[in-house]
């Protein structure tokens, strides 16, 4: 820790620079550096060091057990380019992330506007609509796997209301399974987006709405010109959460389809798991994790830069 500069000057016998007493005390009694040690050590042990080692392993043929492994350069990455499963998994991951981000936020915003209105059941509805977000994803996914089966409750319900033609093999049809996974994730987390939008909506002062109404602005105009700009921070957070959550998605895919049918719903995360623990290809698996890291980093910094510029422009 450094002492305030005027103390050192005083020691050399020069005239001390006058400074408020509190600043001297503040510098002497500032919280010491060792307060960060426990957190920093655990973080380094669990995240930093293994991540750095992970990046190194991505350039080796390590199988997870054998201490003898050799450096193979970019082999894992070039293997990825010629691996149709890996290319597909990257594509599915991006598709899922974008679809979840759009649908979940659209539904969440609509729900938030509904719950923020004058309806009588708004408090109860808020609690109910958010409830799925706290339930264990693997559990809700197993529940949906049954509901979406050929004889499951979803098809029964469609049959019961006369929509037999809409009945599908929701998880068994390779063209449909990916979108079904997206639907289940949106069912679970739309309430989460709603709660964050709601916090944003409630920060919009009522007076602004009233004066806009008196000036003759209709509901659509009021939403666009008054509410929307003030929702920008909530939107930033929501987009960030849903896109990163979508890129890392594992539990729901594992429980709903296991990546199938065939490889129709494999994502980078499910492939990392399969390659490491069923095929024993740790080096290749970690190379996939490196790709995942790069995608997450690019998506979140890109989005942050884009949206913080928009936020500034909106305010």
């Amino acid at each position, binding site marked *: 820790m450094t002492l305030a500069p005027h103390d050192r000057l005083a020691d050399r016998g020069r005239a001390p620079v006058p400074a408020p007493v509190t600043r001297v005390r503040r510098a002497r009694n500032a919280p010491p550096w060792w307060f960060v040690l426990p957190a920093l050590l655990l973080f380094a042990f*669990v995240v930093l060091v293994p991540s750095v080692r992970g990046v190194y392993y991505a350039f080796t043929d390590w199988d997870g057990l054998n201490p003898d492994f050799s450096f193979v350069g970019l082999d894992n990455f070039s293997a990825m380019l010629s691996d149709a499963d890996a290319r597909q998994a990257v594509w599915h991951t991006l598709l899922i992330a974008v679809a979840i981000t759009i649908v979940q936020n659209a539904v969440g915003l609509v729900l938030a506007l509904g719950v923020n209105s004058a309806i009588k059941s708004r408090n109860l509805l808020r609690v109910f609509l958010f409830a799925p977000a706290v339930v264990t994803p693997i559990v809700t996914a197993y529940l949906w796997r049954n509901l979406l089966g050929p004889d499951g409750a979803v098809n029964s319900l469609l049959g019961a209301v006369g929509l037999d033609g809409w009945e599908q093999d929701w998880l068994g049809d390779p063209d449909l399974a990916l979108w079904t996974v997206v639907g289940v994730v949106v069912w679970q987390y739309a309430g989460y987006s709603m709660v964050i939008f709601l*916090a944003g909506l409630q920060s919009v002062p009522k007076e602004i709405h009233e004066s806009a109404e008196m000036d003759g602005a209709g509901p659509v105009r009021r939403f666009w010109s008054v509410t929307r700009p003030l929702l920008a921070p909530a939107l930033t957070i929501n987009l960030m959460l849903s896109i990163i959550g979508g890129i890392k998605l594992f539990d729901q895919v594992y429980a709903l389809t296991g990546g199938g049918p065939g490889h129709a719903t494999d994502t980078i995360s499910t492939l990392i798991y399969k390659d490491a623990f069923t095929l024993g290809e740790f080096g290749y698996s970690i190379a996939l994790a490196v790709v995942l890291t790069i995608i997450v980093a690019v998506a979140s910094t890109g989005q942050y830069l884009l949206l913080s510029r928009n936020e500034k422009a909106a305010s």
Partner: protein
Amino acid sequence: MIRYRRRTFALELAMIAAALFVAFPLYVLVNLAVRPSSDSSSPIRPTSSPTLDNFTQAWQQGSLGGALANSVLVTVCSVVVVLAISSLAAYPLARVTARWSRGTYLLVLLGLLLPFQLASLPLYQTLRDLGLLGTPWALVLFYSGLQVPFTVFLYVGFLRALPRDFEDAALIDGCTPLQAFRRVVLPMLKPITVTALVLNTVTVWNDFFTPLLYLSGSAQQTMPVAIAGFVGQYVTDWNLIFAALVISILPVLIVYFLLQRSIINGFAGGLKG
């Protein structure tokens, strides 16, 4: 004021319909869980002869009691440790402007960008060498470090908006920095601590990937892994599986409905920082 008009009533009905759509899977879940396996009528028809047999059978055969105890142990220990070390670390990171402080904070924030899949495989090897693999302590250690970046981020954002007058007064009165932290700063951190508590508890309790990796093959399971094992074992006996799912959801939903206000505010509020 916004008045209750006919249009508001139509909106009310539409919103209730949306809530029913959200609740529909839960209705089927309970309906099938209380149904004897001999009953093979449509899953959406209310069960005519409800029974609790599935629950006793699932509880005994799935060793769900042990899994529940492990989940509680892992969640409580991890969350207590991560809140303690992160709030302590956030204090200098928020107050000291020296280069070491800013550098450390950036390093910690870098952790927000690293997906845990990258660290979890090399860490697997380390935990195996330490003999922790297959024990709940592997998970406590993992979550205590993994959740540091997010929790420190919450605390630093909150602390920077707090005035320092109270701490300064405590220091002038002769408190050591540690005393000032414990007696003055920590009590002021209560709102953000509730948020961090809620978010970390839900994350740790629901995590599936980590225990799948670090506990696989051992007798120690947490609830999500026990459920996955149960589904794998009783592949088609859905009445039994649904009873197990209800058992795993129930504690979560009870806590949620009891503390719904703090929990929802925790989710909404932590993200303003």
